[in-house]
């Protein structure tokens, strides 16, 4: 129970966590994942630069790590999975779409126990990271120039989404701590929050105690530590309670945690909202990114006791997840 929320309100919190998987190469190409400290745009290839004509090839190791994580989170592995394209224009997105998963994620319907309570896991899926923008000058709007660094483009991300089962800032933090421990134990990720391996976003809302309906939520971003997660949720619950108690309504929006100010602040929908006009659209599933998973997952489950996990394998009419030529590195 959150200390800041009076007994009239119940906190309802769901989490979306992006985990950088501990693979040696990127999600769809052979570039290394240890790009930190490298000069901008030096850890790239035609595929993660999104050059004309290039095609993605699924990283087998990333799929293995996802399946391991999903099984550890008691998820159902889906028999068939595919990747989709999230289309939007932004300079850190070299293809004009992010490869992610919409309707057929690799796994669904799991749970994790946090402090004696079950938190339901909605889905766990794979996607690729974007590059980053470096803004010249002191602030975004005074600089005049933004530079694009694509070293991070195509890094493998696993997204873990929970149901709104958490009831306090402490719950949210405990969930993230528990998740980090689990991911480290199975070797899926180094899961260092400070290094951005584990990026937590909290969907936070309040409702009158006893109500079954969900209130209007805000999405909290830019959270770089467990402490920040706790404080951001705590702050936001208090803020929302004040809004509601003064007869106002919570606005559905994305809010960023400001470490300097120790408060959440309304974010422009993305840096420079005026430059981000197009809503993401679902793209066609890339034909090269369809795979049958189930047999591989069963083997992985069976092998959990002893032998090395096996990767997903072929099913009739689907595409095998293959090892790519340029990296036995996995």
């Amino acid at each position, binding site marked *: 129970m959150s200390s800041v929320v009076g007994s009239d309100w119940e906190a309802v919190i769901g989490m979306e966590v992006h985990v950088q998987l501990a693979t040696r190469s990127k999600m769809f190409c052979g570039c290394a994942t240890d790009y930190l400290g490298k000069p901008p745009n030096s850890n790239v290839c*035609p595929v993660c*630069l*999104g*050059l*004309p*004509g*290039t*095609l*993605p*090839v*699924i990283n087998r190791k990333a799929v293995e790590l996802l399946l391991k994580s999903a099984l550890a989170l008691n998820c159902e592995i889906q028999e068939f999975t595919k990747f989709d*394209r999230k*289309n939007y*224009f932004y*300079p850190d997105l*070299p*293809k*004009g*779409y992010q490869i992610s998963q919409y309707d057929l994620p690799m796994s669904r319907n799991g749970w994790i126990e946090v402090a004696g309570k079950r938190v339901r896991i909605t889905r766990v899926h794979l996607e690729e990271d974007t590059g980053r923008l470096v803004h010249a000058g002191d602030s975004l709007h005074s600089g005049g120039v933004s530079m*694009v660094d694509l070293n991070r483009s195509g890094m493998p991300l696993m997204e873990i989404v929970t149901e709104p089962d958490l009831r306090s800032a402490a719950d949210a933090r405990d969930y993230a701590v528990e998740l980090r421990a689990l991911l480290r134990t199975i070797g899926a990720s180094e899961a260092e929050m400070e290094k951005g391996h584990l990026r937590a976003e909290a969907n936070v809302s309040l409702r009158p105690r006893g109500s079954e309906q969900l209130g209007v939520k805000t999405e909290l971003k830019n959270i770089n530590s467990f402490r920040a997660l706790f404080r951001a949720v705590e702050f936001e619950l208090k803020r929302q309670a004040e809004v509601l108690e003064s007869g106002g309504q919570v606005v559905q929006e994305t809010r960023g945690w400001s470490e300097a100010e120790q408060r959440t602040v309304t974010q422009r929908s993305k840096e*420079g909202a*005026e*430059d981000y*006009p197009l*809503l993401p*659209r*679902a*793209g*066609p599933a*890339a*034909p*090269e*990114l369809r795979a049958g998973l189930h047999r591989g997952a069963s083997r992985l489950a069976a092998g959990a006791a002893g032998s090395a996990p096996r990767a997903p394998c072929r099913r009739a009419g689907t*595409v*095998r997840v*293959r*090892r*790519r*030529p340029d990296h036995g590195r996995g």
Partner: protein
Amino acid sequence: MSGALTSLTIAQMHDRLTRREVSAVELLDAHEERIDAVDGGIKAFLRLTPDLARGQAEAADRRLAAGDGVHALTGIPLAIKDVFCTQGVETTAGSRILAGFISPYDATVVARLRQAGAVFVGMTNCDEFAMGSSTENSGYWPTHNPWDPTRVPGGSSGGSAAAVAAGMAAFALGSDTGGSIRQPAALTGTVGFKATYGRVSRYGLIAFASSLDHVGPFTRSVDDCATVMATIAGHDPLDATCFDRPLDLDRVGAGIKGMRLGLPREYFEVAGMEEGVQRSVGDALEVLKEAGAELVEVSLPHTDYGLAAYYIVAPAECSSNLARFDGVKYGLHDPGAESLLANYLNTRREGFGPEVRRRLMLGTYALSSGYYDAYYLKAMKVRTLIKRDFDEAFARCDAIVSATSPTVAFKIGEKTGDPYAMYLCDVLTLGADLAGLPGLSVPTAAAGGLPVGLQVVSPQFREDLALQVGRAYEQASGITAEVARL
């Protein structure tokens, strides 16, 4: 002398090269002379690569002299459709938006041909991003048909087709998404082929519609086509849809005695079929019958819906595939734009031609939320029905034969004002793309002095059957792809 050299098939050139009757450099010289003489009127090439070609020809001669590692394509002049990324060469997909883009890598098929020792003469014109059926949608200029320069060579691979038909290259690479190899092959009297989806790697092919894009060659004989296919086909770890299954072309020359050839009723009743084409194809069927084939009528009942499904699926996929051309990383951009959004809008408005913009809008609409199920998903269901039509037809025959194009080459400008009339050019070819099946076009008797093509479609993974039928027709009819006198 040079005229004689530029009319040869790959097999004949290879024969002369290996006997050292001609060198690869001489062969290249002959083709460059021919290009100098005729391409001013045909405009098949967007750019020539003389330095690259010379280096490759010299290397081929060293290989031939040493007699070591000589491949059937070593020293053979090749024209490459401008949609295949070629390392160190400007590759623009026929679009202004990619002007100045020099590819830092080779498409897999280009790499394989480079390795085989083929000589890259230049990059050929095409409809912008391969969207079109006449090469008039090129962002640069239209290409003219070598058989009648007032007419189109077909498209989108019109430059490649014209280069082979005019003796400016012994063979060429094309891509086929709705008929873009077979239709120009028919309109220029060349042999054009695309294999089963996934037989040839798409890595490095600038994507138009990922689930429909196929790669294949233009040649002047079916044997040459088989030679090129044997070189470019096969598993590529960089393309996850490219399957690992041997391509067995040993029986291509075995004849068609006892083979059952299906005539789809709907393909013979298609609207706009010209009498000359009908007659030429009818004669070709007689030849096939005399060569021992049994002709059976089959049905592809969903043919009518093919065009509609195609014009949902292809634009939807292209709207996503072409998103990367945003002026941020390469190609055209607007240095004066006052904002990122203005740069996007100006770059894409300036860089894309009207047909590409039309398809981007259609595709964006078809994928937008609320319409995805009604359009894209429904079109994909129709596609499944079309595949099923072919499966059922192949239960009754070994291969399907028909005209490739309902018309001969049309006049430049004749259909540019009417997109729908242009789309109808592909009505007989796009079924094989929607179903991912091998499709061949071989020249039949000319109609009114203009080339006509016979299309052969075979079951998935059975490229050999289509080529076998084409080869048998070539032999029995005595009609082979000729080089246009210009």
